[in-house]
């Protein structure tokens, strides 16, 4: 600023002070002097006083070198366009990026040696010289050497049967050398039964050689039944499909029952499916028990499933008392389960001999097919008495509807006496027999009759008691069971027997 301060305002009412900024100096107060100071930096020059000229004296322009490009004016862009990376090839390694290290690797092969670091030395450690052997000539020992083999020569002849030999020649054979051989010749004839021979020919046989052979025969003799085997004298051979004439088959003769075997004289053979006529079958005759064996005269035969008619089954007759044995005259047979009626006989329906003491013996399920029952008891009682009664009850009835010679309205009846334990002889026994007529009828009360007796001596002198008694059971039911007990209520001893007979 060059004018006085406050001239526009007429007094000191304007600028009152000036403060220097950066690069500005102020001197004086009333009329301050303001001065600017500027100094040139690197690459910059300043000239003039009133009017300052500032000039660039440093880098004014940038030019791109090899592998470098420059672009822009105010803000320059410098780019590398040359080598930017390295890639290792065979046997080469690259390490580092800013200042890469490129290294080569070398390894020694067979017969080669490598030594040194900065300067490598490659040396031959294999064949270093060559020397000629037998029948071989060599032009030198090292460097370019010429090796000469023995000369070629013409091989000699070779024949079948020659012996192996190492040879003495100083020449060698070419790979296509050929030995002279024996010639081929025509083979001789060969015939069946010829003798083996090594031969003496100096010629050889071709692989497709062929010996002449004997001819096939044309005359074949016929075979006959019973013909004799012969080796033959023909010099001809038989073809695979040759065939001998054979006698033709003929119809076989017929067989008859009782035919005898014969070799036969026919000149014709029997075919596999030949059939002899056989006698025909006929209906078998009847056969009966007692028939006499007979050879027979029929000219017919029996089939395997033939059947003789037989006599029929018959009903067995009844067995009667006192009947005599007889072979019989019936023409009928008895079945294995046949039964003869014994209704008119006395039949043992049941029997037992005690193997130990028993209080009672009962015959149950008495058949209802007889007329009379007979009960027989023999034995001893265990009671301490000389004798006691054998008592009977029918159908298990213990009611007081029994009557006999010992009283009425009893609960049982006497069948007889048996010996008691107090009898002198320990082996003495008593016996009782009871007969019951019409035991199956249901009209009358059952009537029975008993007889019996026993020794009763307590000393050695024999004495006895006997009894006969009629009895009745005031019941019309058929008797189906009979129970025997001891009158004194004790046991029958072991050995006591009881039997029931129906008649």
């Amino acid at each position, binding site marked *: 600023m060059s004018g006085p301060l406050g001239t526009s305002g007429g007094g000191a009412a304007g600028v009152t002070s000036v403060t220097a900024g950066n690069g500005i100096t102020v001197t004086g107060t009333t009329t301050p002097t303001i001065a600017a100071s500027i100094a040139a930096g690197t690459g910059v020059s300043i000239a003039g006083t009133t009017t300052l000229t500032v000039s660039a004296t440093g880098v004014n322009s940038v030019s791109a070198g090899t592998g470098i490009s420059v672009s822009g004016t105010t803000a320059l862009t410098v780019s590398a366009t040359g080598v930017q990376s390295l890639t290792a090839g065979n046997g080469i390694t690259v390490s580092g990026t800013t200042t890469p290290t490129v290294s080569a690797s070398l390894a020694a092969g067979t017969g080669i040696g490598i030594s040194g670091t900065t300067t490598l030395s490659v040396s031959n450690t294999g064949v270093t010289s060559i020397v000629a052997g037998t029948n071989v000539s060599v032009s030198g020992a090292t460097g370019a050497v010429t090796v000469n083999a023995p000369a070629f020569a013409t091989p000699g002849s070779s024949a079948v049967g020659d012996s192996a030999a190492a040879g003495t020649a100083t020449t060698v054979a070419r790979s296509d050398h050929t030995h002279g051989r024996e010639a081929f010749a025509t083979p001789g004839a060969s015939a069946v039964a010829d003798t083996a021979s090594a031969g003496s020919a100096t010629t050889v046989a071709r692989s497709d050689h062929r010996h002449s052979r004997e001819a096939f025969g044309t005359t074949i003799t016929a075979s006959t039944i019973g013909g004799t085997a012969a080796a033959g004298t023909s010099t001809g051979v038989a073809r695979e499909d040759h065939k001998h004439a054979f006698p033709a088959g003929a119809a076989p003769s017929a067989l008859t029952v009782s035919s005898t075997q014969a070799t036969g004289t026919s000149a014709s053979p029997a075919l596999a499916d030949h059939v002899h006529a056989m006698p025909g079958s006929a209906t078998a005759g009847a056969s009966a028990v007692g028939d006499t064996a007979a050879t027979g005269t029929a000219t017919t035969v029996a089939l395997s499933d033939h059947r003789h008619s037989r006599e029929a089954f018959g009903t067995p007759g009844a067995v009667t008392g006192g009947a005599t044995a007889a072979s019989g005259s019936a023409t009928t047979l008895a079945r294995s389960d046949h039964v003869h009626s014994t209704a008119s006989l006395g039949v043992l329906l049941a029997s037992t001999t005690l193997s130990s003491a028993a209080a009672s013996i009962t015959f149950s*399920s008495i058949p209802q097919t007889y007329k009379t029952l007979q009960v027989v008891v023999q034995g001893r009682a265990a009671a301490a008495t000389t004798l006691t009664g054998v008592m009977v009850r029918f159908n298990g009835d213990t009611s007081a509807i029994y009557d006999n010679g010992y009283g009425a309205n009893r609960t049982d009846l006497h069948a007889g006496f048996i010996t008691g334990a107090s009898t002198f002889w320990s082996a003495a026994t008593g016996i009782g027999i009871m007969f019951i007529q019409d035991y199956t009828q249901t009209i009358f009360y059952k009537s029975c009759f008993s007889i019996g007796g026993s020794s009763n001596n307590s000393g050695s002198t024999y004495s006895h008691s006997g009894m006969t008694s009629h009895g009745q059971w005031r019941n019309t039911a058929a008797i189906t069971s009979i129970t025997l007990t001891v009158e004194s209520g004790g046991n029958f001893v072991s050995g006591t027997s009881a039997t029931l007979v129906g008649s």
Partner: protein
Amino acid sequence: MDTEPPIAIEINCETGVETARPLTAEEQVQRNADMSRAEAERQAKEQQEALELAERTALATWIAGQSTLPEAARNALARATGVTLPGGTG
């Protein structure tokens, strides 16, 4: 006194099969009743036999005491009444 066990034997006449079994309770009761009855009948029989023996003895004694009768008559009377006179006659 029986020592054997009270066993009942049964023979089936149709099958022939024999079986042994203990007496049933009912059969045992009947057995006991039979024993009592038999004992009573035995005692009654003994009493009757003793009475008859006493009567025969008294009769024989009376016949033997008929001294007014010939001996042959006394013997005939003894035989007729079925008694044995003292001394074995009769």
